[in-house]
């Protein structure tokens, strides 16, 4: 069965559902709108078909709460529809690419629902196979690390995809769960690229499928392969505009390639959809991406407005990473990207349960202090970073411990540099940059608060080593393209080297980048002068 999911939801769906799926009608703000085209053959009662297809579409776009409720209601409405329990358990796995998995409570809920689904007995072998595939993730959930669960899930879906080669949904879910096994330490991106190969085939067959476009973006969310994700990124928001995540996700690719205007536009829509649907962490996440982009464009007033608007949204909790990370990062970026070191020093920690989001603020305060010459405050903040690092190490959270170690090394480097030990400063700052390059950025962030290699360039420039600085800036551009501070540093370094042609080239890039900006930063006036506009 193929259903085009179009707004308004309800006349057709509610009629088809015999009016029983009141949930859709109860939450028009959450559900109204297009979610893309999904074709998931199933043996459930015809009366639940529209709701089931829509719930699967929501699953593909991570519309968590609404999809969870929808699958539960479908199973209530048609107790023979065991495949609805598969959907219910699947949505509770949360974003599989974040590597977090469900809360313990949600895992229990999923296990209980799967038990009901197994007891009900799906009418087809294929549906039973789907249920067992998600069961591979949840069975023994309590005693397995998340990584092992991810691998078991991927193997189970690989088997389903192999058994049903003509089942597009099986291929698509297989690709998703394969991509979810990608290690952030593997810079060959093996799992991502295997998943992308499957998804590219599906993209040609199913260009309006929300999952295909969505998972292609995730599968190309790494610097050297991001360009390949642009076609999917430019389509996904129009495929599933009702899903806040679909409006935000394209910006993962736009950020990777430095397409800031596109990032701002899609995150603005995502913010509005997220606040309308009550998804507060997603609203902060989208705003952080938007602020990052706006600051690159020199649209500082818009960045401030976007940040302030987000900070007025209440309802998130300190345990929600997307909220605490976004809130702390926006404030840090707004100060540091503008070189407002004094404001950076005064930032307040956003209360959180996660030491790595607290670290954003410590890092910004430390860098602000070091660059202002306030070594005492920089050292105090370095101690805060050390405590955050220790907490992460004790929690065995290697990824974020490494990220905070990069920040610690950078701050130690700037302190040494400002204390007059140039060689030690560069040694530490270079170690930070090298370590950061080996650790992929996390999906919670559009980018590090400031790229470490760009900071190395800044330090070398202050040490009157413009050629070395330019080399670092240009290396940084490979992973962090089209950044304001990078272009400005590159321009200054090139000028100091006497390479006027290259200086003009970078000045031109900065002028072009900021042509719709406020024009208030002194760097823009300098760039215009070098470029020959004034």
């Amino acid at each position, binding site marked *: 069965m193929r259903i085009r999911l179009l707004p308004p939801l309800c006349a057709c769906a509610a009629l088809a559902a015999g009016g029983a799926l009141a949930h859709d009608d109860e939450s028009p703000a959450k559900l109204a709108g297009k979610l893309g085209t999904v074709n998931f053959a199933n043996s459930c009662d015809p009366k639940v078909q529209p709701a089931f297809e829509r719930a699967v579409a929501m699953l593909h776009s991570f519309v968590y709460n609404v999809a969870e409720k929808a699958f539960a209601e479908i199973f209530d409405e048609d107790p023979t529809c065991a495949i609805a329990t598969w959907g219910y358990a699947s949505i509770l796995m949360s974003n599989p690419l974040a590597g977090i998995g469900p809360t313990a409570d949600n895992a229990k809920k999923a296990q209980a629902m799967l038990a009901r689904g197994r007891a009900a007995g799906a009418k087809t072998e294929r549906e039973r196979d789907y249920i067992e595939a998600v069961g591979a993730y949840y069975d023994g959930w309590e005693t397995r690390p998340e990584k092992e669960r991810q691998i078991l899930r991927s193997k189970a879906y690989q088997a389903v995809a192999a058994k049903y080669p003509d089942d597009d949904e099986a291929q698509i879910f297989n690709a998703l769960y394969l991509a979810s096994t990608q290690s952030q330490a593997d810079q060959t991106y093996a799992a991502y690229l295997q998943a992308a190969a499957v998804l590219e085939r599906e993209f040609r067959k199913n260009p309006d499928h929300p999952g295909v476009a969505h998972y292609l973006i995730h599968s190309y969310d790494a610097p050297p392969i991001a360009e390949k994700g642009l076609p999917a990124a430019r389509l996904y928001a129009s495929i599933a505009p009702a899903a806040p995540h679909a409006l935000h996700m394209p910006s993962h690719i736009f950020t990777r390639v430095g397409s800031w205007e596109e990032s701002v536009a899609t995150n603005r829509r995502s913010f509005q959809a997220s606040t309308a649907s009550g998804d507060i962490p997603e609203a902060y996440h989208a705003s952080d991406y938007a602020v990052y982009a706006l600051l690159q464009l020199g649209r500082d007033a818009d960045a401030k407005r976007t940040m302030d608007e987000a900070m007025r949204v209440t309802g998130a909790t300190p345990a929600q990473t997307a909220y605490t990370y976004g809130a702390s990062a926006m404030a840090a970026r707004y100060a540091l990207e503008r070189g407002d070191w004094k404001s950076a020093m005064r930032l307040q920690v956003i209360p959180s349960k996660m030491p790595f989001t607290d670290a954003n603020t410590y890092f910004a305060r430390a860098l602000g202090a070091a660059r202002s010459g306030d070594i005492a405050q920089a050292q105090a903040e370095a101690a805060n970073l050390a405590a955050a690092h220790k907490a992460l190490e004790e929690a065995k*959270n290697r990824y974020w411990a490494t990220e905070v170690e990069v920040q610690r090394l950078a701050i130690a480097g700037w302190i040494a540099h400002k204390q007059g030990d140039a060689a030690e400063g560069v040694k530490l700052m270079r170690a930070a940059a090298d370590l950061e390059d080996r650790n992929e950025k996390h999906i919670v962030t559009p980018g590090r608060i400031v790229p470490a290699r760009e900071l190395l360039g800044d330090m070398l420039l202050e040490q009157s080593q413009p050629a070395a600085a330019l080399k670092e800036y240009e290396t940084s551009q490979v992973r962090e393209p089209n950044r304001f501070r990078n272009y400005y540093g590159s321009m200054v370094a090139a000028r100091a080297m006497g390479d006027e042609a290259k200086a003009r080239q970078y000045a031109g890039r900065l002028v072009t980048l900021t042509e719709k900006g406020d024009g208030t930063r002194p760097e823009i006036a300098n760039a215009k002068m070098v470029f020959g506009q004034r």
Partner: protein
Amino acid sequence: MRRAAIAALAATMTLGAIPGAFAEGYESKPEAAERDPDYAAGKKAIADKNWGEAIARLMQAEKRDPDNPDLQNWLGYSHRNLKHYEAAFKHYNRAIELDPRHRGAHEYVGETYLLVGNLAGAERHLAALREICLLPCDELKDLEAAIARYKQR
């Protein structure tokens, strides 16, 4: 292994693995490994210095979580205490293979090299720690001290 590390382990046993609040929002949930009953029992056996039991339980946990560098490190430590040096080296090296920046494994394998009279082996890991610990770390200081003591013998 430092007494502090053992004390921390004992405290973890008492207080429960990782503070619950830290669970939310992490890139992975390492506490899930701690909830593995064999892993937990293995660590308790280490705290009790029951090395044979520790090895038996950790090897059960290893079947489910073969790529956990901490688990490999604990296995190395347990074997080392039984003077099973070959097995200790195998697990320490596996821990380092899984996490080349595992400071604890570098320190402990370095100390194990000293136990078998291989100063050069210990100094290789000291050099690795000097690369890793640009910011001061206890593991580097402890291995430096162990090597200094070894040289004074």
